């Protein structure tokens, strides 16, 4: 036993061993939501690390003006692939696919999702789409060089392998739709007795709102991608001005999906933070109903603001005004969340464990990024900073500082539950500090650069931008170092760390902390009956 304990999590029981099935088939063909969740986790993490390497190489090229390590065509391909991988293969499936699958069914007291086989199909579609995207990098005319937005008419003309990459994204989108359908149905149909809507954990509420966006927005991406392929293969000319088409219509269709998609990325992250803050402040969440409602409000209002990506593309002034106004509306539910988190912290008994550090930095980084979003959402200021590094900085603050840091928070909060082992606390805190500092050096300089007029996606820049670009690149190294320390420490802990004793290492009050560590297949020995809210900590004790 002692020998086994030191080697692998499976020895600790639960779903790792109780089916009696072993080998690769027990994973790739399993319909258990926990195994599928871990499949998602490892695959999205792999693509995240790939995207990180691409990002580091990009920063290396931009370290000094002129050619540093690559030519302009390679640079165009690199930022395109960095964007496609990070957005479609990491952030969108990231938290819902990995932690949604791992946690959500347990949190509502279910044995699995509503359609377990469909769930497995979702992962396979994700894997197939990812494989097609990877294939597009090495076949045909080489990796696409259009930017992750695939704007027509350029994406219809470039000789690079856009069609195959776009087809891969289409398949990944299908996977996202199926996950959304599965989650909405699960949350409606499989809640345990006593798990009323008013007792749903806020992570589940955020996944519910996310799933609706996945269902309602992703099909528009699907048809848009089909239209790109039709333009390239059939030469239909629907977006070709020379043939009566209008490229602006492409931008509309693309952003009808891709703006709501940023809420697919960040809503589940907000859900993670809403779980972690009350547990580590030892206090019931402040404003439960408003946080739950604001998830739905963000999903609804966020679906009506896509036009703010096109203020300089040639829309009417009326359209600009309406989209600008609606964009400011979205700030309200986002701010409701931030104020409620901060109010939860007020007079709480705060313990700064690694999950909490990541969650707290989410609040700060997301607020910086979100407020910058308002600068972009106001038409007058947007004209100045549109398509500059200000946008790049803003986007990475909300997506990496927001969704990314929440992903790390979720890793430190929930993975010990599933691996039955705990990571070391001190290296995790050091890693967090390195990442936090590196992150701000890397991306805050981008915001300043953008304000000073450095355009994004350009291969080269003027000499006066050199100093800040060098600082930004140095920030990327600090961030990468922190990331390496974090991952090594975390995975060392999950494989060899101290076994987690008891079901509830953090003192949480949601259902996943009532089942054994690691949870058994089908989660509950008998169907749970829920008698209290998700943040009712009475009698939970402090760890």
């Amino acid at each position, binding site marked *: 036993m002692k020998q086994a304990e030191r080697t692998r999590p499976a020895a600790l029981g639960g779903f790792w061993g*109780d*089916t009696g099935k072993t080998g690769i088939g027990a994973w790739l063909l399993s319909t258990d939501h926990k195994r599928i969740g871990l499949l998602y986790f490892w695959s999205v993490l792999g693509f995240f690390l790939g995207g990180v390497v691409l990002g580091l190489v990009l920063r290396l090229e931009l370290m000094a003006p002129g050619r540093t390590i690559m030519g302009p065509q390679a640079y165009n391909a690199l930022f395109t692939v960095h964007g496609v991988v990070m957005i479609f293969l990491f952030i969108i499936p990231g938290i819902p696919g990995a932690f949604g699958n791992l946690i959500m069914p347990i949190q509502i007291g279910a*044995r*699995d999702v*509503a*359609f377990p086989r*469909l769930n497995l199909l979702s992962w396979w579609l994700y894997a197939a789409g990812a494989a097609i995207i990877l294939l597009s990098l090495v076949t045909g005319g080489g990796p696409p060089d259009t930017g992750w937005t695939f704007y027509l008419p350029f994406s219809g003309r470039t000789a690079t392998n856009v069609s195959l990459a776009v087809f891969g994204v289409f398949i990944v989108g299908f996977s996202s*739709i199926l996950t*959304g*359908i*599965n989650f*909405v*149905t699960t949350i*409606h*149909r*499989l809640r345990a007795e006593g798990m009323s809507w008013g007792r749903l954990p806020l992570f589940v509420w955020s996944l519910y709102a996310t799933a609706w966006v996945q*269902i*309602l927005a*992703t*099909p*528009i991406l*699907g*048809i*848009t991608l*089909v*239209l790109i392929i*039709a333009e390239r293969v*059939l*030469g*239909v*000319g*629907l977006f070709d001005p020379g*043939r*009566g*088409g*209008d490229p602006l*219509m492409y931008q*509309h*269709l693309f952003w*009808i999906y891709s703006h709501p998609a940023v809420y697919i990325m960040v809503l589940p992250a907000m859900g993670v933070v809403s779980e972690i803050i009350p547990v580590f402040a030892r206090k019931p969440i402040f404003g439960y109903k408003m946080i739950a409602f604001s998830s739905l409000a963000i999903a609804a209002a966020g679906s009506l603001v896509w036009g703010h990506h096109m203020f300089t593309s040639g829309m009417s002034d009326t359209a600009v005004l309406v989209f600008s106004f609606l964009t400011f509306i979205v700030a309200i539910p986002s701010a409701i969340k931030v104020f409620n988190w901060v109010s939860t912290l007020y007079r709480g008994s705060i313990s700064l464990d690694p999950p909490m550090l990541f969650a707290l930095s989410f609040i700060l980084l997301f607020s910086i990024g979100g407020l910058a979003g308002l600068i972009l959402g106001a038409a007058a200021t947007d004209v100045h900073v549109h398509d500059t590094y200000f946008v790049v900085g803003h986007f990475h603050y909300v997506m990496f500082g927001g969704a990314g840091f929440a992903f790390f928070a979720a890793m430190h909060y929930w993975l010990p539950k599933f691996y039955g082992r705990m990571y070391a606390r001190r290296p995790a805190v050091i890693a967090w500090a390195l990442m936090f500092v590196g992150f701000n050096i890397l991306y805050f300089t981008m915001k300043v650069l953008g304000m000073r007029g450095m355009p994004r996606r350009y291969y080269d820049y003027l000499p006066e931008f050199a100093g800040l670009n060098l600082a930004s690149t140095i920030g990327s190294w600090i961030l990468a170092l922190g990331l390496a320390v974090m991952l090594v420490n975390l995975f060392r802990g999950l494989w060899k760390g101290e076994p987690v004793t008891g079901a509830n290492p953090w003192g949480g009050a949601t259902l996943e902390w009532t089942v054994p560590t690691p949870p058994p*297949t*089908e989660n509950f020995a008998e169907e749970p009956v829920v008698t209290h809210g998700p943040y009712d900590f009475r009698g939970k004790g402090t760890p």
Partner: protein
Amino acid sequence: MSHAPHRDYAGAKLGMWLFLFTEMLLFGGLFILYAVYLHRYPGEFAAAGHRLDLVLGTANTVILLTSSLLAAMAVTAVQRGEGRIAVLALGGAVLCAGGFLAIKYAEWSVKFSHGIYPGSPSLVAGPPGESVFFGLYYLTTGLHGLHVLIGGVLLAVVALRVKGGRIHAGDHIWLENGALYWHLVDLVWIFIFPLYYLML
């Protein structure tokens, strides 16, 4: 550990309806383009729309509506335990799907022989609104045709399962969801037909 497989009819139907929403939105993108370009080129859209074959379009509408009726009858038949009638009705619906595709094929072939296809020299040289109209026409009816094909295969599979006794009055969620999908295919056509054939 060995629970009976989880059965939740309401859940399965909810999931199917959500999927149908996504299908509608998929076509929705093409309808948005139609609306915008119709607004921009009303005259050229009208001229191009008159070149579509109203007789064949109407025939296909009748065929699809009939097939939807047959699919609905199959559901009722299975609920009453009349599996043989259900198989016949589903067979009829599959035949209708085949007929629809055959007519669509004939319609497209005639257009192709007149030099009307995406990127054809006559469209490229002609007025821009016409090129956009036929581009949308081929994409929309093509995507719909693909759905007819998928729906037809789905109904055929369901028919075989009814015949094999795997779908019966006690367990017919496959049939119900298959019929729902088929009604969606019908519904999309009910929008395509007036927009492209009738109102221009």
